[in-house]
């Protein structure tokens, strides 16, 4: 009885801890919209009133629009390219056995554990030595490298859950290789592909270190934000911009999660048991 009571108490304390830890995790994120709508030029408490003027500032800032355009180009190209590379590797990993398999896949996943500054510096040295000028394309090249492992992680579970007999049935019924891929394989892994596109898009949109080293005169959004953080007067509108990005990221994530669960369901697996996308 006493032991039971003690273990109940322990669970209660653990719950309290878990909830306060979540508050700690969300503390900075909650502050973002607070300051974005705050009617004061300094980013500090106490809050002084409600305003949307910091959002209005954003519509008239030309440099920002350029950065948004650049980031969109980079993030979309990165999402498409890294998902294609990711799909090749994930399919090969899930479907075939071949020599040095775990070594090759481990090597491709390496950017996940390397400090980004090392990747950025190494790419910079090579590009400069090759005499290439820095542009949005160099940023895309770097982003594809670090996003591909994430894509593989997402698509591996999609391809692993694929029932091979469905493809064989399609061959037996006279479909060509391409026809089988288009009409059987692709629809089954499509939710995973979309989830991968959304996640890699989000990562690229937010990535700073590689973009900072490899960007030329056209800056991406995080590099633009970095340049604005130096000016105290610009901060409230940066908060407004951050709020928009935050909302966008959360929407994309919910969408990605929804697609991932749909993919798991479609393949008849328990969505929760399939794990998150990380």
């Amino acid at each position, binding site marked *: 009885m006493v032991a039971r009571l003690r273990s109940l108490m322990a669970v209660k304390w653990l719950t309290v801890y878990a909830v306060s830890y979540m508050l700690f995790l969300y503390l900075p994120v909650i502050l973002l919209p607070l300051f974005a709508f705050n009617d004061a030029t300094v980013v500090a408490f106490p809050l002084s009133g409600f305003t949307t003027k910091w959002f209005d500032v954003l519509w008239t800032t030309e440099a920002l629009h350029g950065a948004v355009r650049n980031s969109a180009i980079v993030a979309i190209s990165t999402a498409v390219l890294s998902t294609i590379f990711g799909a090749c590797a994930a399919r090969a990993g899930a479907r075939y056995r071949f020599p040095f398999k775990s070594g090759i896949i481990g090597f491709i996943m390496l950017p996940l554990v390397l400090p980004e*500054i090392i990747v950025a510096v190494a790419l910079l040295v090579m590009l400069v030595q090759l005499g290439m000028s820095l542009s949005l394309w160099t940023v895309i090249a770097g982003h594809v490298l670090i996003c591909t492992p994430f894509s593989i992680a997402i698509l591996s579970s999609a391809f692993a859950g694929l029932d091979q007999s469905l493809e064989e049935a399609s061959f037996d019924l006279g479909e060509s290789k391409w026809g089988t891929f288009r009409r059987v394989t692709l629809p089954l892994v499509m939710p995973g592909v979309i989830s991968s596109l959304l996640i890699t898009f989000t990562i690229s949109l937010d990535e700073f270190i590689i973009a900072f080293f490899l960007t030329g005169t056209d800056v991406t959004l995080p590099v633009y934000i970095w340049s604005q953080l130096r000016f105290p007067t610009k901060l409230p509108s940066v908060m407004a911009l951050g709020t928009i990005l935050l909302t966008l990221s959360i929407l994309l994530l919910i969408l990605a999660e929804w697609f991932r669960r749909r993919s798991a369901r479609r393949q008849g697996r328990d969505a929760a048991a399939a794990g998150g996308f990380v």
Partner: protein
Amino acid sequence: MIRRLTKEDRQGLTLISPTLFYTLLMLAAPLVLVVTFSFWTQNYLDIDKTLTIANYHEAWTKPIYQVLISRSLRISLLVTLVTVLTAFPIAYYISFHVKQRKALWLFLITVPFWTSYLLRVFLWKVILGFNGVLNSVLMQVGLIDEPLTFILYNANAVVLTLAHAWAPFAILPIFVALEKIDRSLLEAAEDLGDGAFRRFRRITLPLAMPGIIAATLIVFIPTVGDFITPKLVGGTDGLMIANMIQIQFGKANNAPLGAALAISSMFIVALISLGIYLIGNRFGGKVK
């Protein structure tokens, strides 16, 4: 031993080759080049391609680089310790006490990580600042009369901010390891008379060890290379080696020295990681 490739071998290798070639081209080649580069010297805009260890000599003997590297390692190890220790109870809670909504909890933990890293770090500066959120709340409550100044622009602020930024990366691997534990082992221990603490120490902890090692390495390795957090909240006492690498590639215009610093710190990080991995392996993995 050379054997003929089977049809399946060829299909698999063909399919993975685009990704493999891209990684070879964009990761392996640059890494090889950066190592070569670190043995060259730069004089303003001219690169002298004679091989020399001068950069390494400078990186390993000049006090400023020694201070920065040892500080980076100290901060990163502290961050890792704090992150893993605070993450473990959360992972434990979700794995053992959340019954229905595990996926939702995991989702909620990853959401803040997907928001702009730059802005999250900056918001910690807002929270910890002189007129910051923390100080104004504490003053309003009446706990302090003057704003605390020791909480921003030092190594502690860097530790706090990084521990926050890397929390999901520590929670998830530990959670995965805990999920894999066969629950009947715990019941068996209880039936055989182990108390809650003994059961935890003898079964849960050793079996969670692979997750703990993964979390430790996942947090430790990248944090050594971070330069945003030290720059925004670290002040001068919180600057780390990555800031110096960035300066060498930027303002100081001595990229070969920057490369030598990057490789030196990676080398030390690799050694420490190997040590952590070996020690962790000895203590975990099996029920004692």
